[in-house]
């Protein structure tokens, strides 16, 4: 087919060629292919690279290297954080406070914990997708062990005030976990300065490889490992350390500087929105000013999102989170923000990233405008709810 434009950076991103090159050097027989846990020279060479990568990751997010546990991604990190902390909590403190706009890997883990006897207290967001810290404070009770709130929402880009949350959690003597899968390279994150206890990270949203992430666990915080076998990573997460993946994460994080990249992304996003704003009724789900610079979620009333995505199928965008894009349900995030189903289903998430160009953004805006017009004409005389 004709051209192909990728605007789904919030689902995943291509690996930066500089990162790919460093990963490659850990693979073949002339590289650092050893098992980092092996006592010999090949192992030690690999372990040195792992430790360098650990330092890079920690430098980017303000974390103590001793607290970083590498995982297979943020899904595993979220599972480890929630299950690990609650399994270690005393029986009378098995309550988790979280929000209704978390990623599925937090939502489903919370539901699994609920089924296992934990209590979950759900907090809503406002119409812009922002969780008020006071709402979280109200949800914390004497049985609360852990609060889990994401940093940047993957569907709307809404940024939560994690420093305020950390402050109030500390005051109340509960732990705070932050899912920061979407933040790195886009929104500044300083785990230490904010006072966050546990933080989930992933590489593939920041031009690093898929299948590697980390859970930061502030030294002193206790949690039950969720995988058993082997002493790797102090027993917190056994399994052969995948050197090339960890090195990829380290070098991706070294490059992912929100101060350098954020303004460019923000400008592209604004340019995209300016193009789309010409479409009658189009509106931003979330807040253009306070949101993360790489995500733009727009409602196009009067069109079905699946049809719009199909109509512009040379442009890769998403209905919301990638995991739910096959299902006909309205996004739980947009619903929590109060959008009617038809409007939520007529929304599209654009994700902008390192290799996105202004020309691509202009192209996308023009194509969307043309197809919205076509689909609306096709639905002329449809009942009012279709364009709610």
């Amino acid at each position, binding site marked *: 087919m004709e051209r192909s434009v990728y605007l789904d950076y919030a689902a995943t991103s291509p690996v930066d060629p500089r990162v790919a090159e460093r990963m490659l050097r850990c693979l073949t027989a002339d590289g650092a292919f050893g098992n980092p846990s092996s006592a010999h020279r090949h192992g030690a060479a690999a372990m040195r690279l792992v430790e360098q990568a650990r330092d890079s990751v920690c430098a980017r997010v303000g974390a103590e290297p001793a607290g970083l546990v590498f995982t297979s991604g943020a899904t595993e990190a979220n599972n480890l954080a929630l299950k690990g902390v609650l399994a270690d909590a005393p029986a009378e403190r098995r309550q988790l406070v979280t929000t209704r706009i978390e990623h599925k890997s937090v939502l489903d883990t919370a539901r699994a914990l609920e089924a296992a006897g934990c209590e979950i207290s759900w907090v809503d967001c406002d119409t812009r997708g922002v969780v008020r810290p006071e709402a979280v404070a109200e949800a914390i009770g004497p049985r609360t062990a852990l609060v889990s709130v994401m940093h940047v929402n993957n569907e709307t880009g809404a940024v939560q005030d994690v420093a305020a949350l950390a402050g109030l959690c500390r005051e109340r003597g509960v732990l705070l976990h932050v899912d920061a899968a979407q933040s790195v390279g886009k929104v500044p994150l300083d785990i230490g300065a904010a006072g966050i206890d546990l933080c989930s990270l992933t590489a593939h949203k920041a031009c690093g490889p898929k299948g590697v992430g980390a859970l930061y666990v502030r030294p002193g915080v206790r949690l039950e490992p969720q995988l058993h076998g082997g002493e790797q990573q102090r027993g917190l997460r056994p399994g052969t350390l995948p050197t090339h993946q960890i090195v990829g994460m380290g070098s991706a994080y070294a490059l992912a500087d929100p101060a350098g990249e954020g303004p460019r992304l923000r400008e592209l996003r604004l340019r995209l929105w300016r193009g789309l704003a010409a479409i009658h009724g189009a509106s931003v789900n979330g807040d253009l000013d306070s949101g993360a610079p790489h995500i733009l979620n727009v409602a196009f009333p*009067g*069109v*079905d999102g*699946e*049809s719009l995505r*199909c*109509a512009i199928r040379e442009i890769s965008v998403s209905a919301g989170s990638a995991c739910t*894009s*096959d299902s*006909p349900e309205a996004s739980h995030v947009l619903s929590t923000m109060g959008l009617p*189903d*038809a409007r939520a*289903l007529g929304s599209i998430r654009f994700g902008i990233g390192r290799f996105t160009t202004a020309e691509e953004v202009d192209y996308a805006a023009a194509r969307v405008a043309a197809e919205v017009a076509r689909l609306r004409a*096709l*639905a*002329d*005389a*449809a*009942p009012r*709810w*279709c364009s709610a």
Partner: protein
Amino acid sequence: MDYSSEVLRRFDSPATAGETDGADADAGLVAGEAEDRSLNVWVRFQVQLRDGAIRDVRFRAFGCPHTIAAADWAAERLHGRPAAALRQIDVPRIRRELEIPTEKLGKLLRIEDALAACADRIGVPAPED
């Protein structure tokens, strides 16, 4: 979501979308529609009859690509058929020919409903159960 090439072709340029030309309008023009809010779908057909036969069918739709393609397929097939054909729309065959996944069945049934509404207006007798 996978779409068959036939779905894509019809979705990209549905030949029967829109309104009948109206030239012969007073010779029997009916419209019928159906919707399912929970499925985010609405379909409307306009049927022009002459001498008991379908002279033209046009549709409008709010819905997914499968719905639009299926409405187009149905409208096209009805051309020149007797009015009774409005009640004989073969949804399983549409699914087969356009390779539409099962989970879209609910939406396709609204096409059946909208055409049945047209048949009602014309007075095509409903099949006995």
